[in-house]
């Protein structure tokens, strides 16, 4: 039975193409066909192999090898340019020492240049599978390596980017420990590296800074994590010294893709910004004060001017009342005094109007436009006013919405100019006012057939204190104030004029319907 089971040498060779059998003197009796590719015909065992495993205590004797029979043997095939080892086991049977094994191939590299081919291995040998598998693994490893390099490159790119930002940047994890700090935030590399995994409190202790303040800040940081609210604060260093530095810091909650909580901390040096802002504030305050003083001065000066003027007016009225039969030159003198008073009064009014425009807020109310125009015209005092034919036409609604006191000043100025510069020698001097009102705007045209504005004066009439005509009675502020007020009301003013024909002033104002 047992004899029947012993495989024929041909079967052995098929199963173990690298097998060999030795006699008791360790001479080759039989070599497998694949082994023969590695070992020349007439080489004996000692010349053919050296022991790699076991190494200590093994000798080239039958006795010694049999002693290690239970162990795995690795034999190095000698005399090859490409090193090949064979791994397997010895079995002693009936005067013959058999070795069954296969080349120890651990990688593609081990296989290359051995002169062996896949069909040199038996079908049951897994070396080929192993090589295949190994190749796959190697490829995967290679991919991973490439990915890792790419990842490292990107990581360093972004970290570098942060280093060049003109901002202090740090990231704290959910234990309030630093996981990232850019160079701008902490220049000293040693400190920076030390800080990783440490807290703000650790840093405070290291630097021997205010611990109580740091603890308060840490509790705020914790709130950023817990409530997800941004915490903003300012740090002032070297306060009230030449080197004072103010940092604007912002702690923003940040959730990573894997749902971990972080704080993204950034800090910006706002020392210069703060300084210039403070300067602007101071300057503003100063300007406000100067403005206020100037206005107060104008008010009290105009009041002080007007008070005696009113006294004179009142006295003249009484003089006239008490002396009903004045005549000739006395009457003329009184008339001249009154004219002079009126001129002075107008000048004071203009100064006041201008101050009022720059000082007071725009207040919008409903205005009956036609009535307002009529009143303004009625209030104009001029000896020849009655000769002028006035025509007012409103296209659209008569109720408009604007700032009545400002609109009154505009109308007063334009209407009194129209009266003053009328050509009373004409058959019919006239002032025609047409207003077009709609939902958004009101356009008022004031037309006269007066003396007109000469070409050389046209681009100067809106200048302050500019007086283009001998007939000018005011201080040369009328049109200047008009333009300022129109500006304040976000409107436009323009005119067309032909000397000795007439002038049309056009004012466009927003109709602020409430």
């Amino acid at each position, binding site marked *: 039975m047992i004899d029947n089971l012993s495989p024929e040498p041909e079967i052995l060779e098929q199963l173990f193409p690298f097998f060999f059998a030795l006699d008791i003197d360790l001479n080759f009796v039989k070599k497998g066909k694949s082994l023969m590719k590695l070992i020349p015909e007439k080489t004996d065992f000692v010349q053919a192999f050296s022991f790699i495993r076991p190494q200590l205590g093994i000798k080239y004797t039958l006795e010694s090898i049999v002693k290690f029979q239970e162990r795995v043997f690795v034999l190095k095939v000698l005399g090859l340019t490409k090193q090949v080892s064979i791994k397997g086991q010895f079995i002693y049977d009936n005067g013959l020492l058999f070795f069954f094994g296969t080349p120890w191939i651990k990688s593609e590299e081990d296989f290359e240049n051995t002169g062996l081919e896949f069909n040199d291995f038996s079908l049951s040998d897994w070396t080929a599978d192993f090589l295949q598998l190994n190749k796959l693994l190697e490829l995967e490893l290679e991919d991973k390596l490439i990915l890792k390099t790419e990842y490292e490159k990107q990581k360093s790119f972004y970290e570098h980017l942060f280093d060049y930002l003109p901002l202090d940047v740090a990231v704290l994890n959910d234990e309030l420990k630093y996981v990232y700090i850019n160079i701008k935030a902490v220049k000293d590399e040693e400190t920076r590296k030390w800080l990783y995994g440490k807290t703000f409190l650790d840093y405070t202790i290291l630097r021997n800074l205010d611990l109580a303040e740091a603890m308060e800040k840490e509790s705020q940081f914790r709130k950023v994590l817990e409530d997800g609210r941004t915490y903003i604060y300012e740090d002032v260093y070297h306060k009230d010294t030449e080197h004072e530095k103010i940092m604007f810091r912002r702690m923003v909650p940040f959730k990573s893709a894997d749902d971990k909580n972080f704080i993204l901390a950034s800090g910006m040096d706002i020392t210069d910004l703060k300084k210039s802002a403070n300067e602007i504030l101071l300057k503003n305050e100063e300007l406000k004060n100067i403005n206020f003083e100037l206005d107060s001065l104008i*008010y009290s000066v*105009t*009041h002080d001017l*007007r*008070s*005696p*003027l*009113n*006294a004179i*007016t*009142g*006295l003249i*009225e*009484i003089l006239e*009342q008490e002396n009903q039969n004045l005549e000739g030159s006395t009457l003329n003198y009184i008339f001249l005094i009154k004219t002079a008073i009126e001129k002075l009064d107008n000048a*004071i009014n203009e100064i*006041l109007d201008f101050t*009022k425009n720059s000082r*007071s807020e725009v207040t919008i109310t409903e205005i009956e436009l036609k009535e307002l125009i009529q009143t303004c015209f009625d209030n104009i005092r001029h000896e020849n006013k009655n000769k002028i034919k006035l025509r007012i036409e409103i296209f659209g609604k008569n109720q408009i919405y604007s700032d009545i006191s400002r609109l009154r000043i505009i109308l007063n100025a334009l209407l009194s100019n129209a009266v003053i510069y009328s050509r009373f020698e004409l058959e019919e001097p006239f002032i025609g006012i047409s207003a077009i009102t709609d939902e958004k705007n009101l356009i008022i045209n004031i037309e006269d057939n007066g003396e007109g504005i000469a070409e050389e004066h046209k681009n100067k009439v809106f200048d302050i204190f500019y007086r283009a005509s001998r007939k000018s009675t005011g201080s040369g502020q009328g049109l200047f104030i008009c333009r300022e007020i129109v500006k304040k009301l976000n409107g436009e003013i323009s005119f067309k004029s032909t000397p000795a024909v007439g002038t049309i002033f056009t004012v466009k104002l927003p109709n602020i319907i409430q």
Partner: protein
Amino acid sequence: MKKFILIDDDPIFIFLNKKVLETCSCKENVIDFTSAVDALEHIQKELDDDEETIILLDIRMPIMDGFTFIEELKKIAGPKISKFLIYLLSSSIYQADIDKSKQYPEVVDFLNKPLNSEKMEAVCRELDN
């Protein structure tokens, strides 16, 4: 009987206002002061008098201005403040003054200086109503 009190630091306006009042239908008992402090003293003395008193009061005056005068008057008059009707007079009427006067129910109106018979007649008609 109505009583008029004129308060103005400028004697010319006192003179003018008295003249205007003389020509007026409601010319009656007129007393004048160039100082609000003196006026207050006078009013205190005659506080028991129940007759209606019209005060023509200048706003801008040295030492005590018109508004301070009203404050002081309220203090000394107590419930008798109701017999006083005040007209504020000014050479130039400022919105700020108008706004301020709204706090005082005693102020009937603002009048532009100088007063004249026309304006005064209007006041008299208002008072008669």
